[in-house]
């Protein structure tokens, strides 16, 4: 037996949206402290196969020449503090920093089933960065299991049905959820930034809380049936319209995460999305940040149409 305790790794298991994620981190680190938003998703033991394994060893970030072809440095969903590189048999995700020592890097197999994170454990922002890198992994791996990590704020209505609000950053997704909480009874915030939608074996669409929720600490390990999506747009009035076919897909597509340079992952995403938009309702809401906006989307999904003049 080697007595090299510094390099000993402990396995941690998490179940997110029904998929098992496995982390292998140095035993000296307390992962529950580093990743507090993951605590509610932790499982004591492995139950079956891990869809992704992520290993962290404290190590120098490999030098720039080894990163590969630059693929992207901005994402509508992920912001702009990172870079994606592609190599022959790997993807490299880099979290940029002026100081080279403070950069974080992850090298993943092309299907993201195996990844290795490089960085310094003394970095006070380690938890934030590791969490973000795990979101990248989970988003891509999930696509292979009919699951899409979306950029949305989602409410659970009457504890059983979810509605996801989509829109560009600053459109007011969170605000719209807050308006529901305030003005619509029996409403709960399920996730404020990165929920997961999943097409289950029985064909049902479900929406799950995750350990990622943007700036709002809302890390709920629960799921409800997905009733639909609403794309929000700021407007001087409140007006709700339903979208069908192509238009419904176009409304949801920009809020989905898939690396475009991997044909298999991208096609898996569009496959799932095409089926999803046929299963659930998709609406478009031009809205003000007021109570009537919340009532407009609530009525569209949950109120029975009242025939006038009958």
């Amino acid at each position, binding site marked *: 037996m080697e007595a090299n305790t510094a390099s000993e790794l402990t396995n941690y298991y998490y179940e997110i949206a029904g998929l098992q994620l496995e982390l292998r981190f140095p035993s000296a680190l307390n992962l529950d402290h580093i990743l507090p938003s993951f605590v509610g998703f932790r499982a004591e033991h492995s139950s079956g196969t891990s869809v992704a394994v992520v290993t962290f060893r404290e190590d120098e970030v490999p030098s720039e020449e080894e990163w590969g072809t630059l693929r992207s440095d901005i994402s509508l969903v992920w912001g702009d503090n990172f870079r994606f590189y592609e190599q022959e048999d790997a993807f490299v995700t880099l979290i940029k920093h002026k100081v080279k020592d403070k950069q974080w890097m992850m090298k993943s197999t092309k299907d993201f089933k195996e990844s290795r994170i490089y960085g310094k454990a003394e970095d006070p922002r380690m938890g934030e960065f590791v969490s973000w890198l795990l979101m990248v992994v989970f988003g891509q791996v999930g696509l292979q299991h009919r699951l899409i990590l979306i950029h949305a704020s989602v409410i659970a209505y009457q504890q059983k049905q979810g509605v996801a609000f989509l829109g560009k950053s600053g459109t007011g997704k969170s605000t719209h959820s807050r308006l529901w909480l305030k003005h619509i009874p029996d409403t709960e915030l399920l996730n404020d930034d990165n929920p997961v939608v999943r097409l289950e074996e029985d064909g049902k669409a479900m929406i799950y809380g995750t350990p990622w929720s943007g700036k709002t600490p809302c890390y709920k390990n629960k799921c409800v049936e997905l009733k639909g999506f609403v794309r929000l747009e700021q407007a001087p009035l409140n007006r709700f319209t339903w979208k*069908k*076919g*192509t238009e419904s*897909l176009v409304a949801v*597509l920009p809020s989905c995460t898939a690396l475009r340079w991997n044909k298999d992952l991208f096609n898996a995403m569009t496959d799932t999305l*095409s089926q999803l938009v046929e299963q659930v309702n998709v609406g478009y809401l031009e809205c003000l940040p007021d109570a009537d906006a919340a009532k407009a989307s609530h009525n569209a999904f949950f109120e029975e149409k009242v025939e006038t003049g009958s």
Partner: protein
Amino acid sequence: MMKLRQDLVLRKVGDDYIMVDPSQGMVDLSKVHTLNETAAWLWEQLADKDVSVKQVAELLCDRYDVSYEKAVEDAEALVQEFEKAGLLEA
């Protein structure tokens, strides 16, 4: 010889035929192409085949009750449309 792009997958969403084209640029803005029923049918017929006006016109004549002259006209428009939309292999 021109061919259809192999990387695009034709899907039916509701009543529409669509293809999602991942952008190759830095920003993740994908394009969605919509095809009508005839174009979607042609897309399937033309897989692996040479996309020429003659080929398309013949397919149209086989399926629809249309004169060859009219079919050639439509085929020219379609091939141009495919090319303009970037659906042909470079």
